């Protein structure tokens, strides 16, 4: 009589076999192995043991709308945090205020201090665009830690954690051998950042000296764009560069000559990678440009007031290529009148009208060609006073922000207004320097 033991300690190891006839299956095979698997881990079964398959856990707690018909791995750096930075002046150790929602602002002292009003005193550069720039994962801005007239201005960067000095602006090749005064505007186009630099030297107003430099943030290469500004042969006269815009592949630059003569406002242009000289686009604006943007089928410039006429906003259309006045300030002549902070928001253009007497501090909105209206009387509604000079306008988190500078470098009476769905709110009162930029961080 035959006898023995069935010993099957490899059941399932060889999986399902439904090809072989049932009497010839190996002990390690099965006919159906539903929800069973081999787990190469002794602690949870092991390779020679048949183990209940592991569970399917819901990944998303709240169901999406409809059947899932597509799943795709997305391991890219998809966490983007954008932070709006507003420059402070000299009140305390903090150098910037920052916010991620526009409402809650946090002071920080880690970034290198940015330039303050004092650096812009020469040639009346205070009323220039004075923009900072965001570039990839960096905030790029003129540092305010150099000793003016004895050291070169610097470009600083801030990535949210670390502060670096990118480069110093070298002494210009023009008729001055002295250190540059200050960087008065920045504009990032692609991987290049353009810097408008105010230099000492030049001639009598309005022919101040200056340069436009192109900074390649990838290579660190700094090169001059077209000719320098000044009153020498080969230089472009009319002022130091103070505001910039990129339009139809050309770099347009408004010039500040710090003169009150009526009708000498000048804008020049060039193809920045091609031209060696500037072409005068217009030279009879009411006064010197302060803010310049490309928008709405053309370009817009806001100027200062002249000795005889109020500040104006001009438009240059795509087709006419000439500058036509669209808006004249009711503040009248002189008195530090100017328009500042041109910015496009929701298909419309905004800027701030300022005049020191009265004072006038109005936020203006352009809704159509030549159609402007006052949307906020900052002097009346927000306690703006003479000296709360307007700074940058910027769009952040689908909201529009305008800065208004402190009355003094150490004062904390500057403020920031925010516009969301046509409602204006004062979101911060502090020691405000006027410049803003957005830092984008990817993690």
């Amino acid at each position, binding site marked *: 009589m035959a*006898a023995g*033991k*069935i*010993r*099957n*300690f*490899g*059941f*399932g190891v*060889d*999986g*399902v*076999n*439904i*090809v072989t006839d049932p*009497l010839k*299956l190996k002990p390690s*095979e*099965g*006919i*159906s*192995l*539903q*929800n069973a*698997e081999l*787990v*190469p881990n002794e602690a*949870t079964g092991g390779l020679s043991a*048949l*183990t*209940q398959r*592991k*569970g*399917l*856990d819901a*990944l998303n*707690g709240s169901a*999406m709308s*409809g*059947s*899932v*018909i*597509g*799943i*795709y*791995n*997305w*391991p*890219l750096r*998809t966490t983007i945090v954008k932070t709006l930075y507003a420059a402070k002046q000299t009140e305390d150790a903090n150098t910037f205020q920052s916010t991620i929602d526009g409402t809650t602002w946090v002071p920080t002292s880690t970034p290198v201090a940015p330039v303050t009003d004092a650096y812009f005193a020469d040639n009346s550069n205070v009323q220039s665009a004075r923009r900072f720039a965001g570039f990839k994962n960096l905030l790029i801005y003129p540092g305010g830690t150099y000793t003016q007239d004895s050291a070169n201005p610097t470009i600083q960067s801030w990535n949210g954690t670390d502060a670096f000095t990118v480069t110093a602006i070298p002494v210009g090749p023009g008729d001055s051998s002295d250190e540059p005064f200050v960087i008065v505007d920045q504009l990032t*186009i*692609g991987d290049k950042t353009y810097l408008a630099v105010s230099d000492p030297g030049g001639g009598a107003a309005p022919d101040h000296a200056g340069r436009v430099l192109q900074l390649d943030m990838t290579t660190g290469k700094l090169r001059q764009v077209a000719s320098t500004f000044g009153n020498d042969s080969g230089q472009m006269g009319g002022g130091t560069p103070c505001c910039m815009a990129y339009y*139809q*592949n*050309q770099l347009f630059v408004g010039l500040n000559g710090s003169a009150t003569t009526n009708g000498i406002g000048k804008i020049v242009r060039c*193809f920045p990678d091609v031209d060696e000289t500037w072409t005068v686009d217009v030279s009879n604006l009411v006064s010197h440009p302060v803010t310049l943007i490309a928008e709405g*089928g053309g370009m817009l410039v806001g100027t200062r007031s002249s000795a005889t006429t109020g500040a104006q906003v001009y438009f240059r259309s*795509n*087709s006419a*290529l000439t500058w036509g006045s669209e808006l004249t300030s009711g503040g009248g002549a002189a008195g530090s009148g100017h328009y500042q902070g041109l910015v496009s928001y929701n298909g419309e253009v905004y800027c701030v009208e300022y005049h020191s007497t009265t004072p006038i501090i109005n936020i203006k909105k352009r809704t159509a060609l030549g159609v402007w209206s006052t949307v906020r009387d900052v002097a009346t509604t927000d306690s703006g006073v003479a000296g709360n000079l307007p700074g940058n306008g910027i769009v952040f988190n689908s909201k529009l922000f305008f800065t208004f500078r402190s009355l003094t470098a150490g004062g904390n009476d500057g403020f920031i207004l925010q516009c969301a769905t046509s409602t204006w709110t004062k979101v911060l009162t502090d020691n405000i320097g006027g410049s803003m930029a957005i830092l984008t961080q990817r993690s």
Partner: protein
Amino acid sequence: MAFILAQAGTTLYKVDVSTGTATALTLPTGVTLNSTRKPKFATLGEWVVMTHSPSKNLAIDVEGTVRVLCPQAPLNGPTTSNVAGGSALTGTYKYWVSFYVKDADGNVLMESPLSLPSVELTVTTDDIEVGELPLSGDTVTGRRLYRSLTGGVVPYRLFDVDDNTSNSVRDGIADTTLELLPSLAEFYVSPPGTVPGFQMKSIVEWKSRLWGVSNDPTLVDTIFASDTNKIYTWPNSLVAHPAGIDKEGVVGFGVRRNHLGFMKRTGIWAVSATSGGTGIDFTRLTVSQIAPRQAGCLAEDSILTINDKVYWLGRDGVYEWDDNGVKSVSDTLVAPWFKKGTTVFNRDRFQYAFARYNAVTNSYELHLAAAAASTENRWVSFNLTNRCWYGPHVTGAFTPTHAGDATDANGLPLTLVGGSDGVIYAGNGSNNRDGSATAIDMDCYGPWHHGEDPDDTNYYGQVSVLSRVESAGTMEVIPVVGRLDTTAQAAITHTLTTGRERLRRLGVGALMRLRFRKNTVNQSASIYGYELPWHTIGRR
């Protein structure tokens, strides 16, 4: 953090793998997703390209901004007229226009093909007004103008008009100021799916290009390819001949390190490249038929590349393509699952099968419809380590509708199954359940045993079951003792906390088989083995 892109219904979601938060992404104006056409994705240069499901091909950047992959080309060229009093232009010129999308820093992200050229205009020391600038129906940031040199016929980049509203611009830019070389935009070609109507039914990335095939019935054998590292211009195409012999044409792509397979129902075609390069030269590509009249692919979503080997579902089994060629991996063990007459799966729905890779078990997991079912409610696993099959598996928690694999926040692999309930489920979970409260029904039928001769009748004594020691729970052991058609005995309970347990005698019969079943939520089981004594009674 890590994310996956998922389409549920007609919505595209970004799902945070760490938190499970699903956030709907905003589609470009006028673009909709189809809930019956599964989306196809590919990644190139930090862009995820999405086709088939959208009414227009889409591109998704790392911030989750969704744009059309390629703006539709202008329908008309611009008009031209001279503006007296200008300065720079003397000669004969013509113009082209394209649409583009730029980022906030002014970088061009995507650009359409050029319009037709304008009628030539001859001027003498005048400017030229370029009018009737075409307007894009897509969400674009502007229009790019191109111009010939005087008397020329090729476009040079002129300048950008950063809006989609203005009607005309004035040009007074001298020839000497234009870029030194003519623009390559002349050769920009839109991929299928740029214009609503036909879609790119499949898309992959290979050798730094995107490759796609249209569902246009006249182009199903034509493979389109983008420029190297450029997602929006697709000037290249190949044909997997013979064309027009199968209405489906190329079903999908099999991507290997140095080979790209074009999977048709009627066989497999491929192009090859050298191992050293990241790019390929189109002029040197030839399409070879590597598996004629066999091993064709029925289901695009069943195609999976694992360790430079491609797996897919054909009409009669699962195939593998590696350096040794194409072969079936199912014929020797589980062929009846896939061949005519199967009572396990619904072969009519093989075309809807989908697969995923399970890195923990190193398995190709293929989702199929059970016999007579109209959803892919079962799946089988091909273990790539021992090349054996497991399953069919099932879950009672949800109805699987799609699958994929991804990586978690630490770059570690996940295997994912999407359900008709709008939930994505991650496999290999530590909870011994599916979803929140559904038991995993482990149900295993073992082999038939006999003594020395299957014709003899045996006595089978007490069976000992050895299993992993669990903290709680029991398992059913269901014996069959007799012949192949004998009814199963009553279930015996094996206590899983014991690790080894001697159970009752099984009785008299010629053959013996054990079935193990564990179907309790939050409990698991591992079978180490079993043994039992037997002796022959005689031949009856």
